[in-house]
Each structure stands twice: as C-alpha cells, then as structure tokens.
C-alpha cells in the first residue's frame, strides 16, 4: 500500500469520525471541534494527492491551498466559538434550541 | 561504522528508553503530580539524550547549536507547563477538600 493510499484512507476515516461528532453530539464547542477534525481530513486528502503528484517536489498548489485552509479554519473556529459563547449567554444552554431535548 | 555513529546510536537509544519510561509513567501513575513527575523528568532527559545523539551526527556547528537550543527551550517550556499544571491541580484540590 502506497503512502498516498494509506493517508487518503485515513482522510476518509477521519471525515466520517468528524461527521459523527458534528451531527450527533449536542454541545456546540464539541461540534466545532468535530468540524476541525473534518477540516483536517480534507487537508490530509489534498496533501496526499500533492504527494502522489510529486516530481522533483510535491505539487505546491494543494500545499498553498491547505496553508490557506488552516488559516481560514482557525478564523472560522474563533468566530464560531464567539457565536457559541453568545448563544450560551443569551439562552443559558451550550447547545442549539432544537437539540435541547434530543439525545 | 565510526565511533561517532556508535555513540549517537547509544545516546538516541537511551533517550528513547527514557521517553518510554515517561510514557509508561503517564499511563500508570495514579494522579496529576506523579504523572507530571514522569513527564517532566523522564522526557526532558530523553529529549536531551536525543538532541546530544543527533548533535554527534550533525554536519555543521550551527546544527549543533540549534539542537541544543531546542532542548533548552523545551526544558523551559516543560518546566513552566509543569508548574502551571501543578498550581491548577493544587487549586482544584483546595476547592474539593473542604467539602469532603
């Protein structure tokens, strides 16, 4: 099994795990963490493809995209955490209203 | 195999053993202070041995300096983190014990 196959399989697994957390955990901070796991899996797939495409060096375009992605992910995470905190301040709950009696 | 390479292998292996011991300590010790003890002491020594072993193989003096710098900064970082965690643990204990 090549490194490309191994890491792209890991990306598939990570995506599923992250999706589970995002869909089925109620707590908003947990959902945000799970979203970051999903992000990591997408980055992994891109970098695995860049590694497959290497000649003298790996494909720099996916590398640049992932670098951009990591910075965008931390910005989005900070914004999402701010929204989650505000929701908690307003409603007293750390999950969305429609999730309150679920689980 | 030169004498330098043998020395490097011995040092890196010894470092790995210390890391292993530290990890076992984190997994097996019962509470935060003892675990801290395992992490800071064993891992710092392990990292030092590792850095020393790699320094023997380095091809330029600047690499040696960088490796030692990494060790020193990691030491400062882990000492600080250890102190902070221990402080937090103590505060939590104080909050818990009066009720018990």
């Amino acid at each position, binding site marked *: 099994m090549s490194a490309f196959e191994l890491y792209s399989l890991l990306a*598939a697994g990570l995506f599923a795990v992250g999706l589970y957390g995002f869909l089925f955990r109620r707590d908003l901070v947990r959902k945000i963490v799970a979203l970051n*796991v999903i992000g990591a899996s997408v980055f992994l797939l891109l970098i695995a493809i860049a590694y497959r495409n290497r000649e003298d060096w*790996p494909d720099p375009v996916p590398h640049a995209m992932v670098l951009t992605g990591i910075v965008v*992910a931390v910005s*989005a995470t*900070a914004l999402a955490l701010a929204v989650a905190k505000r929701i908690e301040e307003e409603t007293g709950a750390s999950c969305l209203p429609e999730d309150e009696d679920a689980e | 195999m030169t004498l330098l390479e043998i020395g490097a292998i011995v040092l890196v292996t010894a470092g790995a053993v210390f890391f292993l011991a530290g990890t076992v300590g984190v997994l097996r010790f019962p509470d935060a202070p003892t675990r801290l003890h395992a992490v800071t002491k064993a891992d710092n020594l392990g990292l030092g041995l590792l850095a020393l072993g790699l320094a023997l193989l380095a091809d330029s003096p600047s690499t040696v300096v960088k490796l030692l710098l990494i060790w020193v900064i990691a030491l400062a970082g882990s000492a600080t983190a250890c102190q902070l965690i221990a402080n937090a643990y103590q505060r939590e204990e104080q909050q818990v014990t009066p009720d018990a």
Partner: protein
Amino acid sequence: MLERGIDLVICVAILALAIRLVSGQDLFRSIVLFIAMGLMLALAWVRLAAPDIALAEAAIGAGLTGVLLIRAGQGQRMRGAVAAVAGAVSGGGPRRVVATAGSVGITAVFAVVMVFAVMGLPTEPNGLTGVAAANMEASGVDHAVTAVLLNFRAYDTWLEIGVLLLAILGVLAIHRRYDCGGMRVEAPTMRVLSWLARVILPLAILTAGYLYWAGTHIPGGAFQAGAVVAAALVLLALAGSRGVAALRALPLAALLVLSFAAFLAVSIVASTGNGMLHYRDGTAGLLILGLELTIVISTAVTLAALFAGAGPRAGAGEPRRDAATERPKTL
C-alpha cells in the same frame, strides 16, 4: 517496510485520537486530545513531504486553535461534568441505545462510501507540479509554495487575509467589544509563566523573522511567522504581562487591515495594465517580500486579537451586565 510501518503507526494514532476525542464525555479531555491529534498530523505532514503545512499545523492548527478551544471550554467544564452525571441518570434505557446504534450505523455507512470514493481516485499524477516548476523562474522567489501563495494564486491569499479580517470583526461584534487590546490580567499571575513569556517574545520575533526570510527559498513563510508571534503574544496575555497593555497603544485597527490594504494597493498601483495582482517583470521578488511582511504583522495581530477578543471581559464571572449600561470604549 520500516518506512510504511511509521506511516501506519501515525495513521492509526490519528484515527484513534479522533475517535476518542469525538466520543468522549469530558470536553476538556476532548480538546487536549484534539491538540495531540494536531501534533500527530504535523508528523503526517512531514511524512508527506509538506514541511510548510507541518509548521502551520503545529503553530496554528494545534497551538492557537487549541488555546481558543480551551478558553471556550473553560466555562463549560464544570457544567459539562454536571450534565454528564445528569445524562447518566436521566439517559440510558433502550431508546438511548437505539439512538447511539443508529448514529454509529449511519456514520459507518458513510465511512464505507468515503473509502470507496477515495479508492476510486486516479493513482497517476495529474497535478500542477510541472506547470509550477516551469514558471518558478518568473515568480520572484525560489520556494514553490511561496510562489503559489504570493504570485501564481496571490488572489486566494488576498481573500484569505480578508477572511481573517472578517473573522476578527465578527468576533468583536458578537462580543459587543470595541477594543481588542483589552487583554485582561489573568489571576493569579504566575511568575514563572510571565518570565517564560518575556523570554519567549524576543525569541519568537527572531524565529518569525527567520521564517519570513526563509520562506522565499525554503519551507517557511509569512503565515507561520505571524502565527509564532501571535503565540508569543497570547502567552504574554495569559501571563498578564504589563507589556500587553502597551499593545493597546498600537493602532490596532490599522494593523488588522494593513495586509488587506497592502494587497489592494498592489493590485491597483503595481499591477495596472497587467491584470489583478499581475506583477510587472522584475518587481515580483520585492513586491512579494513587502506583501509578506504585511502578512506577518496582520496575521500576528489578528490571531492574537481573536484570542483576546474572545476572552472574558473585564468583570466577567459576575452576572452579565445589561448591554445598555455597557459603555462603548473607543479603540
């Protein structure tokens, strides 16, 4: 064989950490596991010949995201423990078991679909490596990733800076704060921490300068450099250093928009007649160095402000004051 073994260990460790962090009960524990996963990912990036990403992942993905999450989780920690106990009492029963089995089942089906999708990817190279290599001469830098970021696809990077700017504006708006410089002194102040923060700051600036300069020919670059400085600033803020108070004197808003404005200026002035962000011949190297310097400054200040802006307000911990009584402070 040994090589693939290392990859396998890294992959299994990442997947195991992800499963535990998603399924665990204690939020704080999950966040720590997430940081650990970030560090393992950094190893994976090195294995996949992506040192730029490894640097960014360790500094931003694991480091700064972790700090943001821990801060957000702080308030929830005690309640989470209470809720876990309550859940154990009120939950349980066949309904809960069915729900868990259902959600795990759906995820498993999805995982299988994903695996088949990934296995169906073509295995032969078809990327842009050759195109990038052919144009390196004209890019003004010697490192391919930097060439893509600041020349071939500079437009993307400009918008990325825009995202950073929007995020900090959003955070400040949501928290109804008008000053992101108001980093509060955390109590109790730790002397060891403030010592470390003071020692680290000059080292961080030195490292950032190196990363910034190195980015033109070897792995490194402006975003990693900015993240390193931001991390040192966050450490200073945590230590409650008086040095941070000096930050408030800086024209923070100007620093936040500096890089976005620089890209705008370059696209208007330096590229006229050539198309957007299309550098004139011979000016690319210099323009890239200039733009990168603004990226370092803006990224550092924005990432630190994202942390500070999300922090507890002065007087946090007390019941929330009415918004009307909260006097907007000037920047």
